[in-house]
């Protein structure tokens, strides 16, 4: 049976959610958080950006590019996401890349955005995994975090999305689940800078 992009997405998101407790029993995540923050009626753990290697911190950089200003460039290989500015500068974010993030590359458009996105397992997945919830509401426990940007090409949902993560320490790594994972603060920031219709270039990766 063909595993669709969408079923993979859902499955990996849930695995990410369920796997954290057991697999990371000996891991202390507390240095990666610093207080709490409010956003649209939810409270989430604020990231301690200082705990990250400076290369993963959001930053303005000189970056040679040939895209229109405002284009989002996703470099999965090197774990960066850029919003291009004029004069070969760009705002760069460190990202984690889940399995889904390596399944596609090319040009796309931000066709839809969501605040505290929910997740609905597709019907074919529920058939195989009846134990799954029919819908996981958006909120601080949802592995997609506070925002998601959904990429389409020629009107078709690519199943490729830019979203948050609950695990700041996975920024800069290849993660087991999700697509392009960003710090909550960074995906909120990106949401404000990339209107629906924004051009996206996902660079080819060696994989």
């Amino acid at each position, binding site marked *: 049976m063909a595993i669709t992009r969408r079923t993979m997405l859902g499955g990996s998101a849930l695995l990410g959610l369920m796997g954290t407790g057991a697999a990371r029993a000996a891991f202390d995540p507390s240095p990666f958080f610093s207080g709490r923050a409010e956003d649209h009626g939810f409270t989430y753990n604020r990231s301690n*950006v*200082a705990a990250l290697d*400076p*290369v993963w*911190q*959001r*930053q*303005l*950089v*000189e*970056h*040679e590019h040939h895209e*229109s*200003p*405002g284009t989002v460039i996703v*470099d999965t*290989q*090197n774990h*960066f996401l850029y919003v291009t*500015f004029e004069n070969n*500068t*760009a*705002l*760069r974010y460190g990202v984690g890349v889940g399995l889904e993030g390596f399944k596609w590359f090319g040009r796309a*458009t931000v066709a839809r955005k969501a605040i505290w996105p929910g997740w609905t397992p597709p019907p074919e997945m529920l058939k195989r995994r009846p134990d799954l919830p029919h819908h996981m509401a958006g909120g601080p426990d949802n592995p997609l975090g506070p925002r998601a940007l959904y990429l389409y090409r020629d009107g078709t949902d690519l199943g490729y999305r830019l979203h948050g993560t609950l695990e700041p320490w996975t920024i800069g790594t290849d993660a087991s689940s999700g697509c392009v994972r960003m710090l909550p603060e960074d995906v909120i*920031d990106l*949401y*404000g*800078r990339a*209107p*629906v*219709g*924004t*051009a996206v270039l996902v*660079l*080819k*990766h*060696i994989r």
Partner: protein
Amino acid sequence: MRGPVVSRACAVALLAAGLAGCGQFGGSSAPSVNGDTPIATVLDAPKGSPSDFDVNVGRRVFFAANSAELGDTDRATLDKQAAWLKHYTPYRMVVEGYADEPGSAAANLELGKRRAGAVVAYLVHRGVAASRLRAVSYGDTRPVRRCADASCWSQNRRAVTVLDAVAS
């Protein structure tokens, strides 16, 4: 796939000084990676500098087609702009309005003017002195994207808050 291309400025600086990184030439302590020269990070951008404004606030807001109304996302960005501009007063600001609708050049100039005006009015409402703000419209003369499909024009329908130091 991009290779590990070092920017020209960085390469020259490296050759001249034999340094291990180029971060200091951009003013940031972050290391150079992926061919990028760091200018300022979210943590080390000098408070009140234009880089701080770019990294931690953002210049741009975007509009729906044929509209000069601010949405929730725009107001969130402008709230951050207002807080920053009230704290760092040496700047005057030019708010540039742009449009890219299928109408005439004159209609687009007018729409750009309304967009810039909406941003100025909101910033003033949030406490930024009106005397520091000036609205200009570039109409449809400076699109960032040129494409046939109207759905890709959203990046053109924008207003940009540009910092300008006070001439004292």
